């Protein structure tokens, strides 16, 4: 089973839920995929032993000047303005703009364009200190603009024999789609505040478009107002769990400690949530 944990915006406690859930499942093997490749945080809490680090790559065009006759056909074909042809001189490639679609090499009448790999980040694979959880996370290089290819590559490490939990990047745009797509269930984490509610509604829209079943975890319950609850009741969205606004939980989070480790009574609650999700997914 593949469960994604998402939220309309960052900082709502998505990583907290993903991690504590992973740590509460004692009788299954768990793989945690941190797809928040712009700001991955899971490893801070798990202190994993990293067993493998490999470069994540996309393809960029490379021009063979022995074949190129500067006809200029490649540049206007590129939808992302990643190519400029300087007549009789050079074909300039802007790698950050290139999506690696391969169109320019198809277009070139001289077959002068081949492709070469370019590193956009790294993928790290490891295991939590106690050996219980497999962790895979991606780290996007500074200055890179596109997270999606790296997210796809993190997801390619998915082990279907395990219970897989995916930490989804925040927001409602492309990277989120890449991470939640083809998961069996999505846990949406929100705060009971006006900001939380607004961003939750956007996230719900995404999941409805993708037809992925979902339920809500209310984090920092007790702050704000009741509008998130009213919205969920009206829309018939199940509230799976409430995590109270609690100084101890906030403190453990700030120290980089998953709170179930210090508050074991919560293990049962997370495991119970998983059980009801499993029953729902069937």
């Amino acid at each position, binding site marked *: 089973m593949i469960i994604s944990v998402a939220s309309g*915006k960052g900082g709502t406690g998505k990583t907290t839920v993903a991690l504590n859930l992973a740590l509460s499942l004692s009788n299954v093997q768990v793989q945690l995929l941190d797809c928040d490749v712009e*700001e991955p945080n899971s490893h801070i809490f798990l202190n994993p032993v990293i067993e493998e680090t490999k470069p994540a790559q996309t393809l960029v065009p490379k021009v063979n000047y022995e074949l190129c006759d500067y006809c200029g056909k490649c540049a206007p074909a590129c939808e992302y303005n990643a190519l400029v042809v300087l007549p009789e001189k050079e074909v300039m490639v802007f790698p950050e703009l290139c999506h690696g679609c*391969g169109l320019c090499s198809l277009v070139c009448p001289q077959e002068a364009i081949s492709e070469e790999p370019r590193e956009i980040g790294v993928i790290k694979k490891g295991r939590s200190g106690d050996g219980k959880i497999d962790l895979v996370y991606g780290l996007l290089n*500074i200055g890179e603009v596109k997270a999606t290819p790296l997210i796809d590559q993190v997801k390619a490490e998915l082990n279907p024999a395990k219970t897989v939990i995916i930490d989804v*990047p925040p927001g409602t745009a492309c990277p989120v789609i890449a991470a939640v797509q083809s998961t069996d269930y999505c846990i949406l984490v929100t705060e009971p505040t006006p900001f939380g509610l*607004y961003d939750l509604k956007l996230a719900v829209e995404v999941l409805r*478009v993708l037809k992925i079943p979902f339920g809500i975890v209310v984090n920092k319950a007790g702050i704000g107002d009741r509008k998130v609850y009213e919205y969920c009741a009206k829309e018939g969205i199940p509230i799976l769990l409430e995590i109270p606004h609690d100084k101890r939980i*906030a403190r453990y989070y700030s120290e980089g400690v998953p709170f179930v480790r210090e508050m074991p009574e919560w293990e049962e609650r997370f495991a119970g949530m998983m059980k009801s999700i499993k029953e729902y997914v069937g």
Partner: protein
Amino acid sequence: MRQLTVISGKGGTGKTTLVGSFAVLAENKVIADCDVDAPDLHLLLHPEILTKQEFKGVKIAVMDKTLCTECGTCEETCRFNAIASTEESGYAVNQARCEGCGACVFMCPQEALTLQERVSGYAFISKTKYGAMAHAQLNVAEEASGKLVTLVRENARQTAEKEGCELILIDGAPGIGCPVIASLGGVDLALIVTEPTQSGLHDLKRILSVVEHFSVKPSVCINKYDINEEVTGEIEAFCREKGTEIAGKILYDDTITKAMVAGVPVVAFESELKSTAAEEITLMWHRIERIIQQ
């Protein structure tokens, strides 16, 4: 004209709360909400929309099924797995995955595919109690678009010129990718909002290298600094080592959430108790004003 952008590696650190309050405190400015993916500033500033503009940022492949002979070339060509076929309905483009690159269009022997522009969001120019505001909403499931951020900033710039404003106050996008890079270009100061947690410190380090990569002057705000004063100390030490100024520190204060529920910026929130956060934000704003005038 000066430009200040407020960012945070992750979002949810109080960035919008700060921008909302700065909007009250700053004079003669235009406000720009560049968090186009999950914009929240309007919940505090209640803009009255004056103009609404369609945003056509990305194209998408559209298939004319009457011309398609099911040859499968397009599926083979597409690098983004955006074309697949099913038993019942044959080949189709998956809108959520298509990046509009045009490779399939070029390769289709039947000319059954075309690239078409589509509306992927809206940009607005509005007025608020505290001045003009440029903002936007990206439709869900679209590319996290730096282009829409650029459009919002351009709208803000034009409005500022027209109205003779000296400052653009930007609520930046989260993350380190395209939208945040678009909210950083050419600004005079990037205020990074962080929280004293291990993950906050980690995110701060990453976003700070992005800010430096684009040669923008950074300054740091530690929000809820009393949650963990040891980590606050670590952040301060890190900033000292980097030579990055700390513009201010804000105590954890319930009033911030209360003001948010009431839908007003915390510095404009009338509460029976004096809010320490509001005072600290006001002090910080005066410090930032000095920094951007330098």
